[in-house]
């Protein structure tokens, strides 16, 4: 279906990534946000708080990120599309509810405007060091989706996709910004509402009595209802059966957890979004995401000018990791070069997928600013041997 025009600020704007992300959420149909202020993400909720009264919805500033991250899950079961917004320290507090969202299959978008860590770290400066935390941070086995925008325009465009993916797959979807993307201002074109496709919640067509909250369809995803629809659902963070009732035995655990992971793992290729540039005959492929991809592109241009055969893969969807594509390329490239604003997170995935068939050169950076293009160029040169 098409976007509700009341949330779409059609036109050309000069916005930073935080504001653009908020506009993306409004265009996607987000009508309930619970959040807690934290640099450098606060502008997202500030804008939502100022815009939502005229759009029709609710913003509430909760007492902490733990509260925010579960208030939005309540909001989703009340029937709204929901989002919460944070940065590293807040994300750490939210972890238990990532797991609750995963096991209860609650559609939620979580924006993480990454800053330097660990702990309070660098509140006003960038990093990309939460990439593994969003994948693995809550306990137990589960899967999530993570998108990595590289511009304010993508903060708008990909945010709509983030909501659509959350509704389609009923998983937490992480929107992995960073301080630079969040605070960098660029032109953002917001199209008319009738040119924005939004995915509606998978409302069941079954009647009360027939509906089983966790009976999944062929794609591994169950249809949903909201509280007040007369289905008298029971939703629990305990391992549960198709009725949603606690079922604490190995067979129920195996069935549930395999489905929660398979619904994403088996659709890895369909979910992938890789922007490739000149990888076909490349000796070296740079794998990057987010703000780093913009710096990497400059380094790739310089390397090509110097006669090196370099390709560039930008991961728009970072999780699930597109290991199939790395595996395809590994036998015919010398090396992958992975620049990222951390000391080696996504590089580990590249290394794993390459499985020894190509080298992986890490261009780590502790954060606080972005790489110099020259640092990445040096890595490309080293990889090209």
């Amino acid at each position, binding site marked *: 279906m098409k976007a509700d025009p*009341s949330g779409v600020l059609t036109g050309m704007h000069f916005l930073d990534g935080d504001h653009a992300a908020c506009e993306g959420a409004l265009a996607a149909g987000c009508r*309930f946000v*619970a959040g807690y202020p934290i640099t450098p993400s606060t502008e997202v909720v500030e804008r939502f708080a100022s815009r939502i*009264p*005229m*759009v*029709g*919805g*609710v913003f*509430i500033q*909760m*007492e*902490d990120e*733990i*509260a*925010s991250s*579960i*208030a*939005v*899950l*309540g*909001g*989703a*079961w*009340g*029937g*709204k599309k*929901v989002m919460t917004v944070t940065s590293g320290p807040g994300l750490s507090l939210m972890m*238990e*509810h990532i797991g*609750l969202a995963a096991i209860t299959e609650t559609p939620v978008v979580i924006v993480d405007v990454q800053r330097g860590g660990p702990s309070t770290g660098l509140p006003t400066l960038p990093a990309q060091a939460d990439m593994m935390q969003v994948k693995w941070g809550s306990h137990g086995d589960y899967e999530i989706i993570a998108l990595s925008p590289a511009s304010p325009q993508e903060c708008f465009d990909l945010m709509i996709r983030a909501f659509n993916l959350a509704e389609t797959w009923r998983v937490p979807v992480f929107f992995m910004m960073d301080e630079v993307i969040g605070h960098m201002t660029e032109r953002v074109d917001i199209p008319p509402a009738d040119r924005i496709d939004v995915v509606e919640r998978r409302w069941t067509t079954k009647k009360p009595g027939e509906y089983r909250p966790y009976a999944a369809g062929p794609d591994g995803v169950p249809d949903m209802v*909201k*509280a*007040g*629809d*007369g*289905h*008298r*659902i*029971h*939703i*629990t*963070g*305990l391992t549960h059966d198709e009725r949603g*009732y*606690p079922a604490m035995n190995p067979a129920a655990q195996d069935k549930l957890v395999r489905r929660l992971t398979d619904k994403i793992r088996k659709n890895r290729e369909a979910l992938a979004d890789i922007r490739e540039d000149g990888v076909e005959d490349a000796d070296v492929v740079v794998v990057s995401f987010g703000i780093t991809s913009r710096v990497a592109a400059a380094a790739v241009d310089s390397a090509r000018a110097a006669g090196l055969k370099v390709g560039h893969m930008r991961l728009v969807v970072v999780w699930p990791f597109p290991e199939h594509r790395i595996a395809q390329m590994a036998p015919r490239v010398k090396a992958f070069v992975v620049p990222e604003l951390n000391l080696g997170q996504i590089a580990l995935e590249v290394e794993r997928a390459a499985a020894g068939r190509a080298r992986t050169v890490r261009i780590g950076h502790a954060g606080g600013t972005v790489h110099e293009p020259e640092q990445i160029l040096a890595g490309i040169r080293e990889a090209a041997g």
Partner: protein
Amino acid sequence: MSQNLAIAADEREYPVENPVIPYLRQERIPHIWCPGCGIGTTVNCFARALTESKRDLDQVAIVSGIGCTGRVAGYLNLDSFHTTHGRAIPFATGLKLSNPKLKVVVYSGDGDLFAIGGNHFVHAARRNMDLTVICVNNFTYGMTGGQLAPTTPIGASQTTMPYGNFENPFNLPFLADACGAVYVARWTVFHVKQLTRAMHEAISKPGFTFVEVLAPCPTLYSRRNKLGDGVDQVKYYKERSVVKHGAATKEVALGFQGDIVVGKFVDRERETWLDGMNAHFEKVLGPRYRRYGE
């Protein structure tokens, strides 16, 4: 044959179904609670309060945290949410704000609501979020095996206070009152009629309403403190309860096996968070504001 006759006789004698049965998810019975536990009694009272309230049960949702009382959500035949430890209130806040037609009731234990969840209680009461919070207070952590709770009276023994508790417990009605709850009552599972009425009043009143119910945990609290079984605890409630409606909440703190002041302590009017939001935005934004929740 004789067994069938016995059943038939039983049905003749008791032709009316237990009125609470329609409120329960029959397929989930038997429940997990111990013999002598007070939680079931509170559920019985709650079901009767729902009957008296004549609410459309499709529009009542119940949210629990984790713990023995946290399991209440799973047995009630309502839209029910069994969330994480301590976080029932913020979940309920989101549920209520997202779907304001719902009556949202948080039903959980003292450890869940006031230790790990204390901050959320404080803020939901401050905001006058339109929720009813029912706290079954058994002075202990039941599900994990009898550890110190923020309500454990001084002197009571717990597995993590093996030489007797020396920490000051919360006086829950005083806390709720100070934070702004519009309705505050305390009863025990001995007072089933009064408790039912208090629950009915609490779910009928808009805003943040709070009912504390004292309930025995014979397996852990009573046995460890040599207080007998569930019946002995109910006898204690009967003998030592003092009804004082309107009592000053700062004077209703509980001591170990001491007097229990029960009654309706607070019943006042305050604008709910959502009504406040609508009124405020209408005032400051005028016709640009899209009124929410109707």
